[in-house]
C-alpha cells in the first residue's frame, strides 16, 4: 500500500466517490463528487471504475508526497500542477515515482479540481462510501493526513489515454430547470430566466445560494417538511434561492419551486461567488 502524505491541505479538500445509496431514509446525505463529469474523466483516464474515490479540491490545490510509485490524473478547474517542480497537464496520466512531491496551485476558471489515483483512493469507508461527510466521524483532510492507495508498478505504463476536453464546459452559464413540486407558488415563472442570478459567497457542498432575487411568489404558510434532493431549488421567505447540492439535507420545509439535473449540478459545482448564471426552463418534451 502506498501513502500520500498531505503537506498542504488547500482551502477545502475531501475524498469523494459516487456517494451513499440507500441511507437518505435515515437522514444521511447522498454526498459524492460535486462535478461528477470531471471526477469521472479522471477515473476514465486511469482506467479506474467510474465510482472510485477521487480527491476533490476547492478553490486551491493540495501538496502531496507519494511513498510508492503510481499514476494519477487531474481534471476539472484549470490550475498549475508541479511534480518535483516539473509542470504537468490536466486530463492526462501523470506517473509518480516513490518520494516525489506533487503541488497543485490556485484553481482558475472553475473551483473544483479532481485528482484520481490508479485503483482509487483507499481511505475509510462509512455506510458504503468513502465520501467525506462532517457528521459521520470521518477524518478530515489536513496537514499530515495520510491517504492510502494501491501501489502496482506493473500497470503504470498501460493505457495512455488522453482526453481533449472542451474548455467551455467550465464556463457554461445556462442551468436547465424543471418545475418542482411547489412550482405553482411562482406567479411569473419566466422571471427566473430574466432576472440576474448571482452566486452568493455562502455557497458550499450543501447548497449553492443565490441572494435575494425578488421573484413574484405566493405567500406560503409554514410547509410540512418533505423530502428534498440534490438539484432541488428552494425559495426562502427572504427571497433568496438555494439549489441543493450533493451534501444537502434529506428533508426541507421551503417551497421546491424547481429542480435541475445532474448536468446543472455539475455546472453549478464549478461556479464561484459573484459569477452570474442563467436559469432556463426545460422544453416540456425534455421533462423528467
Amino acid at each position, binding site marked *: 500500500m502506498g501513502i500520500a502524505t498531505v503537506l498542504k491541505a488547500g482551502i477545502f479538500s475531501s475524498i469523494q466517490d459516487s456517494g451513499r445509496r440507500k441511507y437518505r431514509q435515515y*437522514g444521511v446525505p447522498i454526498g459524492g463528487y460535486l462535478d461528477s463529469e470531471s471526477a469521472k474523466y479522471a477515473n476514465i483516464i486511469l482506467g479506474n471504475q467510474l465510482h472510485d474515490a477521487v480527491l476533490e479540491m476547492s478553490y486551491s490545490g493540495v501538496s502531496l508526497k507519494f511513498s510508492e510509485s503510481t499514476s494519477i490524473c487531474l481534471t476539472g478547474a484549470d490550475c498549475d500542477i508541479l511534480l518535483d517542480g516539473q509542470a504537468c497537464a490536466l486530463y492526462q496520466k501523470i506517473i509518480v515515482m516513490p518520494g516525489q512531491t506533487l503541488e497543485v496551485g490556485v484553481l482558475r476558471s472553475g473551483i473544483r479540481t479532481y485528482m484520481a489515483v490508479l485503483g482509487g483512493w483507499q481511505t475509510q469507508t462509512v455506510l458504503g462510501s468513502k465520501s467525506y461527510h462532517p*457528521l459521520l466521524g470521518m477524518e478530515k483532510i489536513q496537514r499530515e493526513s495520510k491517504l492510502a492507495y494501491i501501489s502496482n508498478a506493473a500497470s503504470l505504463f498501460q493505457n495512455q489515454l488522453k482526453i481533449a476536453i472542451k474548455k467551455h464546459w467550465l464556463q457554461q452559464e445556462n442551468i436547465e430547470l424543471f418545475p418542482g*413540486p411547489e412550482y405553482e407558488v411562482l406567479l411569473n415563472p419566466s422571471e427566473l430566466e430574466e432576472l440576474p442570478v448571482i452566486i452568493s459567497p455562502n455557497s458550499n457542498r450543501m447548497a449553492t445560494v443565490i441572494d435575494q432575487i425578488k421573484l413574484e411568489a405566493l405567500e406560503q404558510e409554514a410547509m410540512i*417538511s418533505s*423530502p428534498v434532493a440534490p438539484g432541488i431549488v428552494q425559495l426562502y421567505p427572504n427571497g433568496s434561492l438555494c439549489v441543493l447540492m450533493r451534501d444537502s439535507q434529506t428533508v426541507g420545509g421551503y417551497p421546491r419551486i424547481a*429542480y435541475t*439535473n445532474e448536468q446543472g449540478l455539475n455546472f453549478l459545482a464549478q461556479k464561484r461567488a459573484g459569477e452570474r448564471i442563467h436559469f432556463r426552463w426545460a422544453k416540456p418534451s425534455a421533462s*423528467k
Partner: protein
Amino acid sequence: VLTTSTYTVKAMPNGLLIELRGHISKSNCIKTQELKDWLLQTNKFTGIEEVICGYQSLYVVFDDFSHIPDYGKLEEALQSFSFAANPEKVSTHTIAVCYDSTLCPDLDYVTTKLGITKKKFIKLHSSRVYYVGMLGFLPGFIYMGNLDEFLVLPRKATPVPCVPEGSIGIAGEQTGVYSLSSPGGWHIIGRTPHRFFDAGHYPPMDIKAGDEVIIEPISLSEFKQIKVMS
C-alpha cells in the same frame, strides 16, 4: 401532476414524489410507511433505488430515468395497493431523558416563556406517547409530531452551530432527537444518554417512522451511569 382522492404525484430529480392528502396525523404517517413497504416489495416497478419519507410524502428514487413510470402506469399500479384496515402493531421505544439544566441550555428560557415550572414542563413533555413522524434532515434526526399544545413555541430565530449528541429539542408542534452533534434551531430541553444512530451498522437506526416513543425522565446521575455503560 397527478391527483386522485388519496394522493398527489409530482416529478422530482430521478424519481417521483407521492403526497398523501389530508392533515398530518399518526394514521397518515403509518399509511406512508405501509405504502413505502409495498413500493419496495411489489414487482410492479423496476429499479426503485430508495424511498425517502416525510410525514406523509414519499420520494421514490429510481436508478435510471427509463424506469420512472409515467403517471398512467403509476396510477394503475397503485390501484392494486390498499391501506390495511387494521395496521400492524408498531414498535414502541422508551427513551430516557435527563432534564437537568446543565445538559439543556434552553430549558430555563422555555419554562419562563411558557410561564410554567420546570416540574410541570417535564410532566407535560414526558407523559405523552409520541409517534415518530420522519427521520432526517441530518443523519439520525428523529422528528416526533404530537407535542402537547401547551408547549408549542416557534423555533429559534438563528440556529446554533453545535447541538450536542442526544439533545432533545422542541419547535412548533414537534419534539425531536439530535442523534448526532450538529447545528440546530430547536430549543434544547433535555438530553438522552442513548445512541440512535450508528454509522458502523446496517441499518444505522432501529427506530423508524410510525414507531411509538415513550419518554422516561431520569436524573443527572442516572444519565451519567447509562452514558458510561453504553
